[in-house]
């Protein structure tokens, strides 16, 4: 199966390893992965800030970059949700209406794609320790993804998955919210990390690098014995020389 990879701008800029790992996992799942290196961003940051004209410019480029894709897979529920839902606001009844509809039905978040489309949940990953899964708001409420990442994590050897308090509560990132209201945002990160620590977890795992970026920023500053990890990085971990 041929898939087109969409690497969101912040993964492209901050976490290239996560992007490579996404690619590895998809290939291991038997996909032929196509990556268009001209891609940039879905436009979500501007859309959420209220700058819809700017978001539309960027979104237009996105639609062009993926014009022929049959399956688009992205290691981000946030960007997938943006394309699936918010693009209705930007492109309904525009010249690219049909192109937009077609791309909206082709794009999938990574765990959703693995579990529901190609129906595979074991990739030989190993990670030793105890982990909590953080439901990202966009995975849970925009993409309706809840069990898929848990199913994938249950198949990671050595990993013990436990549930923490308020696992489906927002981490407090929220894009510009994190800088416009840094106090509230940081307090939310603090509680999320505390809830994970209360379970003696070594890892906080999620589908979204934006949540993880935020939590790791808090963890690093407070020097805490826990690590935020992207699902793709977990799934590509410990393959040895396979």
């Amino acid at each position, binding site marked *: 199966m041929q898939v087109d990879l969409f*690497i969101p*701008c912040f*993964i*492209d*800029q*901050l*976490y*290239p390893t996560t*992007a*490579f790992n996404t690619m590895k996992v998809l290939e291991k799942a038997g996909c032929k992965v196509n*990556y268009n*290196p*001209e*891609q*940039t*961003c879905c436009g979500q940051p*501007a859309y*959420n*800030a*209220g*700058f*819809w*004209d*700017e978001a539309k*410019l*960027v979104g*237009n*480029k996105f639609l062009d970059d993926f014009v022929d894709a049959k399956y688009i897979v992205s290691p981000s529920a946030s960007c997938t949700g943006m394309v699936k839902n918010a693009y209705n*606001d930007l492109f309904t009844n525009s010249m690219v209406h049909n192109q937009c509809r077609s791309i909206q039905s082709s794009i999938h978040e990574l765990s959703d794609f693995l579990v529901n489309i190609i129906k595979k949940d074991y990739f030989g990953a190993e990670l030793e320790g105890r982990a909590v899964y953080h439901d990202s*708001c966009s995975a849970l*409420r*925009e993409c309706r993804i809840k069990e898929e990442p848990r199913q994938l994590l249950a198949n990671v050897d050595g990993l013990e998955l436990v549930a923490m308090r308020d696992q489906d*509560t*927002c981490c*407090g*990132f*929220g*894009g*510009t*919210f994190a800088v*416009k*209201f*840094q*106090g*509230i*945002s*940081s*307090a*939310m*990160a*603090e*509680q999320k990390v505390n809830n994970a620590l209360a379970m003696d977890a070594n890892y906080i795992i999620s589908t979204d690098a934006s949540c993880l*970026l*935020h939590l*790791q*920023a*808090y963890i*690093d*500053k*407070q020097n805490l014995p826990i690590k935020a990890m992207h699902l793709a990085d977990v799934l590509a971990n410990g393959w040895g020389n396979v």
Partner: protein
Amino acid sequence: MSTKTALDFVSASEHKAFDLQHRKVINFNIDRYDNAVSNGLKQWNNLENAKRKAHSIKWRVMENLDKLLPEFEANFQKNGGKVIWANDTVEAQREILTILRRVQAKKIVKSKSMVTEEIELNAFLENNQIQSVETDLGEYIVQLLGQKPYHIVTPAMHLSLADIAKLFHEKFDTPENATAEQLTLKARELLREEYLLADVGITGANFLIADTGSIAITENEGNARLSTSFPKVHIAIVGIEKLIPSINDLDLYWPLLANHGTGQRLTVYNTILSGPKREGESDGPEEMYVILLDNGRTDLLAQKEQRQGLYCIRCGACLNACPIYKNVGGHSYGTTYSGPIGSIITPHMKGLQEFKHLSYASSLCGKCTEVCPVKIDIQKMLLLNRRDSVKEGFSPQVEQWGWKTFAKVAIKRNWIDFFNGKWKNFFLKKFFTKAWGSKRTLPPIAQTSFSKQWKEQEKKDKTY
């Protein structure tokens, strides 16, 4: 370009977010609420359908307010009541005072009503030498403390039992470690007296019923029943959006409101009042007035995309679900209606420029939309308010410039990779260190982007 209101919100909210005692009390109270609600919701065969129906009835009401409000007025007048239309706070206050002066009222009893908070009735009456006594226990407690309600349904949610016991001990000499029962009994003893002495009862209403010309009041303590039936005059002040077409619609809205407000299957007291005491009746007031309040609601009605904010039945579910509300608390908002619903309606009722910050004070987690019993797409309304604020030119100049640059860079791959990670980290530190705050480190940008690394690898692969 931040307004003073916005700056006040930022500093109050930041302070509250790290107030650990507040966090503890709110988590405790909302945990209890969550448990009750998840139990209560089991009574629905198909909750989703009920919510959809509630949404569509409210949609019909807002599209037909011009017909349904006069229908309510005509029917309520037929029942012997009087309807007064008030455009704003000043008109509402004036009309109330006129009635109170005519009956020479010295004391009024009030049941819980957010609309009376909106028009600052208690302070207004006090300035006119009329004593106003809150009779809802939660409201009574915050009135004793000189505070405003913390929450639209549970006004004293921010207080623990110990806090209240301490207050009653100081004011009424109850035992320092009094139980909830003892405190309630004390309040009951004090308030019973007030009903007998009050000249007028003032309440809000949960619903205006068009086809019967009635108001419906939902409560748990019986205090609204006493406030509406003991005094000789009853004034209900109600926002125009509280309308429902028919008395039959209550079988949907009552359980929805109860479930989402407190988790109950049905609230303890649900009263339908259809005018003053009639000939031959032994109970009820001699005069009954309904004041229909606009106060910015028609400004919201004028917003075609955002008018669904008026569908709200004030259950408070979105407040309890909101991680921002839980962290900053009801008082930080500085508005009558706090939490997600307040953040979407206040900018229209009181001015977008001054209150736009509330639509930005959300991580857009969407939990509010999920829990709303009338399916208001709150998350979407927040986004629409942001869009409008940008359209009106209310966003700071530097932000406008920033997003224009973002769009320019994001449509040209070469520009994104023009600077390497070292430079990008330098810019990030320079512009965002302060805004990122003291509790987090800035995330490091990679030396080389994925796209560039991938291209380099491809090139290498080809040369081999």
